[in-house]
């Protein structure tokens, strides 16, 4: 059954959208990731205009992270103070990202920007995860491997404007979390992702936050940054397709619950290696599209002299 998307202005099979939402939902439940970095490229592949895909995905992430943060708030694993600092950075970043996005859209280069960002970030994260989980599997097969020590004193601890974050048990400068926030905000605006896949490693390795508060705090930040991004896209580009968002949501919500159950039964290292392979596959497909001569060299854009 086809459904006409009022903003994307195309007809798409309704079951394809529900299925995509479901599959990405299962994966995000299994791996504990937002899924935006998989969903947005998949939307490109099925022919949704990139501008609509990015903006709509931002809206969908609001829903999935809201549902996630509720559980973390109940367990008190959200550092609201750290979240707020990250959020301030995020809002600035999102604003900058939208300016860049709209500027390149006028130049006709926005697709390139989005694709390049995906190739670079997916490639980086995918290979890091792949190597790390390979090492982890190798270590776990040898008994008695010492766990890596995490809290080191690095340059982060020598910056000014220090602040106490009681929930995280940290006394650090606000500059690094602000910068992390800005980076994530830019990515949210350009790539239509929550940015958890950048923020979580940054919080653990760069800021030295305890692992138990990392996910809840990043979800807290993501809700507001993606909500802000959605508003910016909706008011400047008119590209948020609410029908598309709702369909993806329905599939995603159900899929996530199934995925969580599957995830519990699998080993963490195995899970991560599969996630890494998937990330690298999406990255490879996008890179391939950029490198190989396209079958149609010409493309159409909306008019307006630029």
């Amino acid at each position, binding site marked *: 059954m086809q459904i006409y998307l009022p903003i994307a202005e195309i007809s798409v099979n309704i079951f394809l959208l529900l299925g995509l939402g479901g599959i990405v939902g299962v994966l995000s439940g299994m791996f504990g990731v937002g899924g935006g970095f998989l969903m947005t490229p998949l939307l490109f592949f099925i022919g949704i205009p990139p501008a609509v895909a990015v903006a709509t995905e931002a809206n969908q992430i609001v829903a999935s992270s*809201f*549902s996630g943060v509720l559980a973390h708030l109940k367990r008190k694993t959200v550092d609201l103070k750290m979240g707020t600092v990250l959020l301030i950075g995020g809002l600035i970043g999102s604003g900058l990202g939208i300016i860049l996005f709209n500027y390149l859209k006028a130049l*006709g280069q926005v697709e390139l920007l989005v694709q390049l960002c995906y190739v670079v970030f997916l490639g980086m994260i995918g290979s890091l995860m792949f190597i790390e989980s390979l090492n982890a599997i190798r270590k776990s097969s040898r008994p008695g491997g010492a766990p890596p020590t995490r809290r080191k004193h690095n340059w982060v601890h020598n910056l000014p404007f220090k602040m106490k974050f009681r929930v995280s048990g940290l006394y650090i400068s606000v500059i690094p979390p602000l910068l992390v926030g800005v980076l994530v905000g830019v990515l949210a605006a350009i790539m239509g992702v929550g940015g958890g896949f950048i923020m979580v490693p940054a919080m653990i390795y760069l800021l030295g936050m305890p692992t138990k508060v990392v996910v809840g705090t990043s979800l807290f930040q993501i809700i507001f940054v993606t909500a802000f991004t959605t508003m910016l896209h909706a008011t400047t580009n*008119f590209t948020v397709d*609410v029908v598309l968002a709702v369909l993806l949501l329905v599939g995603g919500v159900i899929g996530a619950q199934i995925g969580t159950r599957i995830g519990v039964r699998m080993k963490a290292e195995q899970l991560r290696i599969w996630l890494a392979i998937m990330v690298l596959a999406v990255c490879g497909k996008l890179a391939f599209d950029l490198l190989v001569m396209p079958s149609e*060299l*010409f493309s159409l854009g909306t008019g307006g002299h630029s």
Partner: protein
Amino acid sequence: MIRFVALFLMLALPAKAEEIVLGLSRDEVAITATFEGSEILIFGAIKREAPIQADGDLGVIVTVAGPDEPVTVRKKDRRFGIWVNTESVEVDVAPTFYAVATNRPLNEILTATEDLNTRISTSRAIRSVGATVSGAERFTQALIRIRAGQGLYQTLPEGVWVEEESLFRTLIPLPANLTEGDYKVEIYLTRDRQIVDLYATTIPVKKVGLERWLYNLAHENPFLYGLMSLSIAIAAGWGASAAFSVFRR
């Protein structure tokens, strides 16, 4: 402009020997949530005061044109190993939908001069005045090729059935990715490759119901639309977590 001049000249002709009488299968096309494309049946008759006397070949041309819009056509080139958009051409006027149906190939029933004046063939319906890039023609050809691939530009050389030189009908398929607006339907009657009569009408194509409402809200009140999208998202997120926590207990 030129088309109007041509029309005016034709109207100035003394009493027409042959005239078009038209019917349409529908007087508007509604884009609903489940719109999968559509088709319009255009049929009519040729009215004559006297029995057939002209000995030239009879031609019937039916054009359906969507609203005009400027389009930017971009071309990719390899830069630093990857394919990026480089040159671009602004096409000032390009119909968002254009179909030409004829009873025989267009050049057999219309002279090149008449085509130039009336802008019937697809390549004539597109105008790019300010093109500065050399070889701008390749860009307009690409526009036609891409839109033809999407079913938006159609040339149907034997799409009009004519019976007994007096009844004609044609079926124009409309794809799902239609742009809203007034679609101009024009029927030309030709004798000996010269236009002898023209009949023009419009069919509005519009989104209806929820589609209409959402599209309008998104463009006229984007702030409210954004807030609505966010509320739906938050309600769905909250609902999902509430529903599944009940389920788990």
